[in-house]
């Protein structure tokens, strides 16, 4: 680019001062660190990506009573390298823990997406105290 071209204003704004100020250097350094950090993380994730299919681990929380119902919170984590879609989780009371005459033994909920290495929280609601409950993923779809 010639000197004349460099001095030509390109869009009606005031000309940029020659050279870079300390403030501009600082913002450039921070920007370079940020962008290169993001690129570095992506390359690392790419290198570690073993393309394992979605697989899920469910951790049950502590039951709490709300009115006449029992709330069982849980956290589901996708330990695979691929997102799971429409992940349906079912909580079922084991036969021994269901009181005689109780008709509610299962509860289900569905998560739209659980990304790779991501987790999501859910709550099952039972009408009897879930002393012994089996929580498992019953179905999901590839994204």
């Amino acid at each position, binding site marked *: *680019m010639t000197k004349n*071209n*460099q001095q030509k*204003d*390109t*869009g*009606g*704004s*005031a*000309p*940029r*001062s020659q050279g870079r*100020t*300390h*403030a*501009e250097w*600082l*913002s*450039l350094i*921070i*920007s*370079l660190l*940020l*962008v290169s950090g*993001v*690129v570095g*993380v*992506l*390359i690392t*994730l*790419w290198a570690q*990506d073993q393309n394992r299919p979605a697989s899920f681990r469910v951790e049950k929380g502590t039951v709490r009573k709300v009115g006449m119902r029992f709330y069982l919170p849980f956290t589901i984590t996708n330990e695979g390298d*691929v*997102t799971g*879609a429409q992940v349906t989780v079912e909580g079922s009371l084991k036969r021994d823990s269901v009181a005689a005459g109780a008709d509610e033994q299962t509860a289900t909920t569905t998560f*739209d*997406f659980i*990304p*790779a*290495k*991501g*987790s999501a929280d859910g709550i099952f609601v039972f009408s009897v105290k879930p002393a012994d409950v089996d929580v498992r993923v019953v179905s999901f779809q590839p*994204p």
Partner: protein
Amino acid sequence: MASSKIDFPWQAELEDIMRGFAGAFMFGAPFLYTMEVWWKGSFAEPPHLLLTLGVAFAALVILDIRGGFRGSHARTFPRILTDSVEALAIALLAAAFGLFLLGRIGPDTGLQTLVGHIVTEALPLSIGVGIANSVLHQENKENGEGQGNRGGGNGEGWFSRTWKATLADAGASALGAVILAASISPTDEIPTIAAALSVPWLLAFVAASLLLSYIIVFEAEFGRQAERRSQQGLFQNPLSETLVSYLISLCMALLMLWLFRLIRPGDPLEQWVAYTIVLGFPATLGGAAGRLAL
């Protein structure tokens, strides 16, 4: 601008960066409020995200040749490249801030999901950074040229001119707010976002809306600020303009939500307040853009 850059380099740099952020949110707000974009970020693979970053950078290089986010334009190719890196960093930070505010990312978000969400949202936001200066920046006019056009004719009294200017600004705010809020209000994103927000988080929404509105019109040197400050009307004080335009934007957001039946009489007050504040964020960005376009 050039003299201010030489005399106050830190202030000039801060204004450039704020202009970039303002452009990112003004252009990118509809994308931040689109759950399909969130989902794309959830299952995008690292190579695809690297390509997305590359496309965003290439777009910023092209845009920076004539626009960019700085008050003065880049001249040399190395300068265009470094300005584009800074613009990309601004877009990434804006995307991270926006997604955090909307509750889409947080401390418990997995690393790949976090980076996926941010990079995917950064693509449209980077376009906003790239066009921030060329679309919205106009040179300040030294003598308040154009004052008569918006403040009324010289033959009119002060009271009449003041009210005309105030109504013109209020109308522009309302119009801009409706344009941006109307496309977002019928979607499921508003209930989805609002459902996950606590009261302190709603207050953070209010603070972010006010701050961005203030930055857009008064701190980012968008538009004709010298001209605006010399005009008459209740909108010409920075704080009163920001507050009044926010209230107008909230009213427009409320109207849109009611028209699209997302809120109805009988719904809980919490729902009315939460939905209105969540939609008020993009609405106030539209309102600020509307006043600048006036």
